């Protein structure tokens, strides 16, 4: 059932829409970004260059973008969801063919003024398209096998393209976010149980087969998995960074060593101190209090999103908001778990804090959609 079937009592029009934006959310996002500027200023040794200044400019652009998207009617975004998805898939294919390879293998297209990573964009357009799909699909059909296979294909097509790059972390996030939306849309839980069971079964089988006559992978592939799961097996490679990260984090204590007082010499060992490992610096300089505060802000962002989604009676809007919130959650939780040595190192930045253009703009774009859904909700 679509938006137009509701009785729209009062939808704000024109510039008045600004008053109806989800302001608490906007404030929260801005404060996260400010934490980011602060940390980038600190890792640069007390300088706005080379990271904090461009990051601020990007955030300003992002903020404008968010408001602009937020004031565009949500039904417009729904109607172009398929188009957006298609374009992103084409971009993904294009980067696989002609894209430039950065370190860490994420590929981008140079647009002149910025480098666009289509895999980042995919996280949002996938959510959009799936939300539109479930909005279009009559609810009684949602658990029929054919109508379950279709969204699975929608998720796996870009995932396969991203794995090619190869960006394992991003592709896992795509699958988790896509699966999450299917779950939220109400697909029967037995499907999820089946997928999880067979996934676990497959992993167990692969490991059971090790050193038997029917071994499924090559020996070196097993050893690569070993190092991935347990980085301390490779203390001079992956394990080295994790340990340094844990030391920096742990030495922060309750209140940290104070702004710009973290022993930067140690952090020089971290190759990604201004991107993926920036949380380490925060936790070292502001301690447990600082870390938990950032976590709390993140949690509030999620909370406001869920609240907005539950209050919204339009199916596309709710699903879209929940999907974006889930994506946001996956971003920061995977990054933090990685920095704290809970999961293997996969290249996922800390949202709105890590230095990086694509990720920030794409996130602001996503929150623009959340704002649009909020402003144009049926009343």
């Amino acid at each position, binding site marked *: *059932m679509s938006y137009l079937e509701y009785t729209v009592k009062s939808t704000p029009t024109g510039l008045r829409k600004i008053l109806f934006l989800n302001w608490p959310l906007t404030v929260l996002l801005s404060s996260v970004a400010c934490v980011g500027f602060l940390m980038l200023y600190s890792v640069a040794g007390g300088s706005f260059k080379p990271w904090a200044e461009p990051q601020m400019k990007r955030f300003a652009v992002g903020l404008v973008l968010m408001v602009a998207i937020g004031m565009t009617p949500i039904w417009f975004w729904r109607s172009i969801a398929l188009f957006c998805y298609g374009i992103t898939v084409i971009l993904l294919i294009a980067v696989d063919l002609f894209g430039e390879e950065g370190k860490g293998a994420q590929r981008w297209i140079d647009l002149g003024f910025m480098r666009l990573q289509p895999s980042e964009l995919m996280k949002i357009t996938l959510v959009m398209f799936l939300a539109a799909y479930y909005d279009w699909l009559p*609810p*009684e059909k949602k658990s029929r096998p054919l109508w379950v296979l279709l969204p699975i294909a929608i998720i796996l097509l870009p995932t396969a393209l991203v794995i090619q790059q190869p960006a394992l972390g991003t592709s896992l996030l795509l699958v988790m976010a896509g699966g*999450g939306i299917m*779950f*939220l*849309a*109400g697909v029967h839980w037995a499907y999820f149980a089946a997928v999880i069971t067979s996934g676990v079964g497959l992993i167990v089988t692969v490991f059971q087969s090790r050193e038997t006559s029917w071994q499924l992978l090559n*020996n*070196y592939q097993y*050893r*690569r998995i070993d*190092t991935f799961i347990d980085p*301390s*097996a*490779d*203390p*001079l*490679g992956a*394990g*080295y960074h994790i*340990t340094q990260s*844990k*030391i*920096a*984090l*742990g*030495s*922060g*204590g*309750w209140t940290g060593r104070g702004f710009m007082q973290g*022993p930067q010499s*140690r952090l020089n060992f971290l190759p990604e101190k201004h991107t993926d490992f920036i949380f380490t610096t925060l*936790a070292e300089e502001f*301690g*447990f209090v600082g*870390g*938990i505060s950032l*976590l709390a802000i*993140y*949690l509030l962002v*999620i*909370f406001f999103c*869920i609240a907005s*989604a*539950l209050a919204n*009676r339009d*199916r596309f809007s*709710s*699903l879209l908001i*929940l999907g974006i919130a*889930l994506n946001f*959650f996956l971003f920061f*939780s995977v990054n*933090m*778990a990685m920095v*704290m040595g*809970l999961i293997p190192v996969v290249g996922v930045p800390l949202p709105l804090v890590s230095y990086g253009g694509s990720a920030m703009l794409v996130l602001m774009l996503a929150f623009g959609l959340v704002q649009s859904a909020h402003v144009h909700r049926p009343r």
Partner: protein
Amino acid sequence: MKRKNADHEANQSLMSRRALVVGGLQFVLVGGLAARMRHLQINEADQFRTLAEENRIKFKLIPPARGEVFDRNGVQLAQNVPNYQIKMVREDTRDVEAVIARLSQIIDLDEETIERAVALIKRSAPFHPITITDNVTWEDISRVSVNAPALPGVTPEVGLSRVYPLGSDFAHILGYVGPVSDYDMKRIDDPDPLLRIPRFQIGKVGVEAKEEIRLRGSAGSKQVEVNAAGREMRELGRREGKPGANIQLTIDSKLQNYLQARLDGESASAVVIDCETGDLVAIGSAPTYDPNLFVSGISVADYRELTENKFRPLASKAVQGTYPPGSIFKMITAMAALEDGIIGPDDTVRCNGHLEVADRKFHCWKRSGHGSVDLKNSLKRSCDVYYYDLALKVGIEKISTMANVFGLGVRHNVEMSAVARGLTPTKAWKKRVHDKDWVIGDTVNASIGQGDMLASPLQLAVMTARLATGREVTPRLVKSVDGIEQASDAGTPLKVDQNNLKKMRQAMFAVVNDRGGTANKSRITIDKMRMAGKTGTSQVRNISAAERRTGVVRNEDLPWERRDHALFVDFAPADNPKYAVAVIVEHGGGGSTAAAPIARDITLQALYDGPPPLEAYPSKDRGRIRSQQKRLAKMRPMAKTRDDDKA
């Protein structure tokens, strides 16, 4: 519309429930993250803060001891010996040049070593210990230790280096180790952190390379606290690695030593295989080289000498070299014909000295011809025409298939480098590779192991063992790994008529033991040790019609590269085969004169597990054999011993 609304409401509330489930899950996970943060920052804060402030912790990789290699009797073939090294860690040293300059005043360092070390240090990660020099004396080590305060980041360490005590005897089998190169890193695609240690040694060729993973073991690591100069203060944690597995080969080092000594001076190779188990008891190739030279880095001059030698000392000819098997292949042609039933063992063919096929004359090596010959006589006197005739009747496809049954044209699974597959040509092969049709002359050539037919000494030894036992003998080189015996089996019976095999064996017995047999001069005269075999002489050039008219040029008058290869295979004792042997002397001339005596000596040495009694030889050879035995007993492999170093 109402129904629709109800549906919508139900759907909406399902979504709300699911949203709450997902939201709740997110809260729980965030709680987990917070707990972890608390654990790291509050509970373990003191520990981490100490580590961060007073000292630094470091991870050190503990390289595992590489597995050692033994022969079948436990004689050590590859071992690790302690080696004092001086290492440097860049991040502790800071001013690398100054410290090296100071170091060179304390111990003797030549320009080249310094240059190489500095280059390596600059290229490697700052925390990797780099070996500046190795094989230093104990005095140097103590001097460095005494001056430690002036040498930050420099530490003396004991490493292990690889030594091959039997040196050149096992060069072709074991190969050697050397430092990982960029090329290796690309080639092996192995994430093992050990490979990133500068100058870490891995197997380059031979068993060392093929069994690399098992020999290498896995790295351990330790977490140590170091002071500002990089010296270890305290060990915080340790994770044991796994030393490499010890590997025992099926080779008998005593026989191997004899075989290499016997082949010395020729460009030749030989294989001895145990007919009962398939164990490879000796695999020799001459000339050979000292693998110890490669371990510490071979000099350019030495290397050039090895690569430019026309006898190709670096090639393991026994498994890598492929040669036209010549008359040795006649056994296969005959087996194909007998199995096909087109001829019986007693049927005769008339040899006039040549056979005319499609307007072309194919000659027998004996111009006057052999007259009427049956299987036994044809093999004994190595008549060519008999086999031309058989091959024309049975066809190349069946011959080629039979060759595969006996292990020719098949890559045997032996843990050495570049084991050759050889070639058993078929019509389809020629079409595919040369894009030409098979002509009848090709079949005629193939019947006596010429033309495109190619086999390695290893394959010929396997073939002989299969002929001798009638079973599918499979070669085995690794006997046990860490004491665990590796699979071996006597092999299933070959799918051929055992009666035909018996006839073959009788014919091969006649080749050696009957008067007039081509290898009669190289017979064994002790009855219970008698051997059966077959000579082969394979041409490496075409004999033109003109040359035939004027008389074929004698081998001795040709330049070395154009002389025939001499081949011989045998098994003994003939009535209860224990060993099968294949010998190839490159450009050695005739199989009966150049290869058969070598094969007999090796066979006897294997049967008697040492020098055989002189009664085993025909009486007129005994004097010569006695002096030969004396001479060979003195020959020791060339190996750099530890004493050489000190001298």
